[in-house]
């Protein structure tokens, strides 16, 4: 099979916070359309890794290539990459001073230079897709956590990204709101979006992921397809982690 170059590629990536070695020799290729779930104990570098992919954190060594662009410290390059990469945060980070629909329109207007009508149109379509078009004229603070996170997903999708990064999107949610967000993410995966999700939702990982990446202490301990990953983890550390999160 003739292989296209991976849409995301991390090669020998290292990252330090002061003297703390946060990422150790990370190598990861993501093909277009692939869904990667990243898991691991807290402090293992999962978030740091995906934040390096869109340049919210700058890596210190190695190469990160996204959609054909090599990430540099140059703001312009970083921006170019970020325009094609959507990101969803644990704490939603909706703009509190703007209505929901304005949250969705801002970057379309400023970055994509769309007209107000076009931006609103795209925004409304995406709100419909995540099932909250009725809330378009409310402020984020008036919505539930689950609704806010769905708005955040719609906001990222407005830019028509080639890749979506999810940084623990359900960790700040009340239990009863987790499923509505996971449903939207599953639907997105089904439509063929390339995704990297940092999450502890192992049910989601099992049903959606092409590959599960397990990280610990800044390195990728192992990566594999869900069946083998859950049934037959190679490393002790992985087994221990899975025992801990599944035993409850």
């Amino acid at each position, binding site marked *: 099979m003739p292989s296209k170059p991976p849409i995301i590629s991390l090669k020998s990536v290292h990252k330090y916070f002061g003297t703390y070695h946060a990422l150790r020799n990370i190598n990861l290729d993501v093909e277009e359309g692939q869904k990667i779930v990243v898991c691991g104990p807290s402090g293992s570098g999962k978030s740091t890794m995906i934040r390096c992919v869109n340049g919210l954190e700058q890596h210190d060594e190695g190469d990160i290539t996204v959609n054909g662009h090599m990430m540099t410290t140059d703001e312009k390059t970083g921006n170019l990459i970020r325009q094609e990469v959507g990101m969803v945060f644990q704490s939603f980070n909706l703009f509190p001073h703007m209505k929901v629909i304005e949250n969705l329109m801002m970057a379309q207007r400023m970055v994509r230079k769309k007209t107000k009508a076009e931006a609103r149109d795209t925004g409304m379509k995406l709100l419909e897709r995540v099932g909250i078009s009725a809330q378009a004229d409310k402020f984020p*603070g008036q919505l539930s956590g689950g609704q806010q996170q769905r708005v955040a997903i719609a906001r990222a999708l407005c830019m028509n990204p080639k890749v979506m990064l999810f940084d623990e999107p359900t960790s700040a949610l009340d239990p009863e709101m987790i499923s509505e967000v996971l449903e939207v993410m599953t639907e997105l995966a089904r439509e063929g979006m390339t995704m990297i999700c940092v999450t502890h939702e192992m049910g989601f990982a099992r049903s959606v992921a092409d590959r599960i990446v397990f990280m610990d202490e800044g390195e990728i301990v192992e990566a594999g397809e869900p069946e083998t990953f859950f049934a037959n983890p190679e490393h002790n550390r992985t087994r221990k982690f899975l025992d801990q999160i599944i035993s409850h």
Partner: protein
Amino acid sequence: MTFDGSLIIDSLPRLMDGLWITLRLYVLALTCGTTLAIALVLMRISSKKYLSWPVMGYIYFFRGTPILVQLFIIYYGLPQLEFIRTGPLWTFFREPFFCAWFALTLNVAAYTAEIFRGGILGVNSGLVEASKALGMTYTQTFRKVTAPIAFKLSLPAYSNEMISVLKATALASTVTIFDVTGVARKIVAETFAPYEIFLSAAIIYLVLAWVIQNGVRHLERRISRYAN
């Protein structure tokens, strides 16, 4: 002690003339100072030291010295400099009103720049990241996300500053300006009735402060209905 009410009524027209001067000085100093503060805070938060350091020095000086002393330096001190007295700037600096406006403006700018900086530091960094992650540039993010939220966060402290400046305008009376306080002093000198006249002046300031406070409260309520 007797209280002469008719004295107040008689001096009202002159106090109103003073009010007009006070208001002009106040509005001019506040608007110009706030505008200057925006420029200063942008320099202050810059990572370039040649922009941020001069502003730090400026703020340090104006916060660390009494406005009265600054006013005297400008009004009495500057004319001693040859190039001020003989140069084109003399048209301005010979005017007491200009000197008072100048001193107050520089003061408002220094304090307000610090207030705005506090607001900017208070903006949740996650929002800035979210904007950046959408491909917005630093400038776009500042305009659309940081500045509006920072302004809202700055309002309580800024309204304090608005009241302070109102009261500071009274210092203008020390350089021959007949603002409310200046007029009051003059009437007192003529009538020897400090109680009635200064009380009237105080009430005028109180009313103005009340208007400002309520205006800001109204604005605060309007812009923070849902914004957290």
